[in-house]
């Protein structure tokens, strides 16, 4: 899941300067699960903005809508009929959703209400942690299901650095990813797998290779 968090009220207000009618769009996908941009959060934000702008002497009208997902054209198109008289769309989706709305509605100004943080998981209600670096070449088979690319601060692929002390990372007070990997491999009796030296990783499959695209001819409907 993509994990995101709300921008500050000041930042959102600044991006809505001069707008008098705003379409506030929530997303029922990942940001709904991480309690940042679902129907409830959309309602809270819209209400907050209306009250704040009323007290600023510049009332704001809002239209609220929460789509099943903002990263699918079939759902995004449902907004087309709601755009009349709208000065701007405020999207509570991740960066993908915001860009998708901007692409689908070229004549409409679109601004984000969230900061997109990472690909992660819910550890408990109210706590989310990063788990995948989206590197494009998964190494989890060699590391016992613990990702050194994203969970090691330095993305080291052949064991811990000198900053690993008592199982903790020197960069942040997290568990050292390589300590976790070693512990798990020991428990599973597969420590010898760690003796295999990993060669240089092909980072061109990650963000270093520029924006990525995936094509699957077998599932394409047209063409």
């Amino acid at each position: 899941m993509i994990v995101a968090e709300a921008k500050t009220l000041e930042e959102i207000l600044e991006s809505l300067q001069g707008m008098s009618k705003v379409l506030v769009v929530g997303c029922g996908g990942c940001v709904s699960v991480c309690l940042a941009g679902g129907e409830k959060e959309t309602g809270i934000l819209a209400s907050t903005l209306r009250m704040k702008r009323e007290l600023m002497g510049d009332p704001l009208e809002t239209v609220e809508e929460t789509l099943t997902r903002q990263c699918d054209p079939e759902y995004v198109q449902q907004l087309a009929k709601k755009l009349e008289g709208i000065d701007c769309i405020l999207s509570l989706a991740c960066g993908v959703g915001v860009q998708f709305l901007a692409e689908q509605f070229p004549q409409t100004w679109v601004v984000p209400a969230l900061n997109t943080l990472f690909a992660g998981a819910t550890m408990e209600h109210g706590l989310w942690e990063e788990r995948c670096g989206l590197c494009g070449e998964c190494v989890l088979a060699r590391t016992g299901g613990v990702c050194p690319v994203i969970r090691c601060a330095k993305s080291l692929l052949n064991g811990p650095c000198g900053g690993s002390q008592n199982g903790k990372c020197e960069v942040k007070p997290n568990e050292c990813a390589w300590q976790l990997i070693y512990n798990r491999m020991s428990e599973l009796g597969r420590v010898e797998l760690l003796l295999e030296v990993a060669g240089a990783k092909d980072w061109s499959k990650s963000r270093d290779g520029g924006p990525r695209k995936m094509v699957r001819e077998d599932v394409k409907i047209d063409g």
Partner: protein
Amino acid sequence: MEKRESGKTESFYPKIIAFCCYYCAYSAADLAGSLRLQYPPAVRMIEQPCSGKVDIRLLLQAFEDGADGVYVAGCMEGDCHFLKGNIRAKKRVNAAKKILDKVGVGGERLEMFNLSGSMGPRFAEIANEMTERILRLGPNPLNTARAERATKGEEGDPK
């Protein structure tokens, strides 16, 4: 009725919404009535199946719709009929208070109280306490802003 209209400082009498848990505050209000205890008519009660039913949206909506004060009354901590509803309500009330502070309405206008069904006198005390607090704070700034805007509109001012 003129006396009770919110937004007019000179004749201000607050509108307070009380979201009351069926298992405690609502029964306590009933008991307060049976005991013939007086509490201010400023308080309008809304029955909830549990204080945990209260949502931040609901609290904000009450203020947006013109309430001068809002409170949530749930069971004593540890005594919730649904185990943790009142603890969750407390967290939501605190989150809504922060929003109200940022917005400028003021988090002090919102409060969470805990009482049991047998605490009729405490229910009346809470209603008095909240009414006094809101009388001290004055009308909901949103009501004042709207009233000012309406007056300006009547005078032909564009805003």
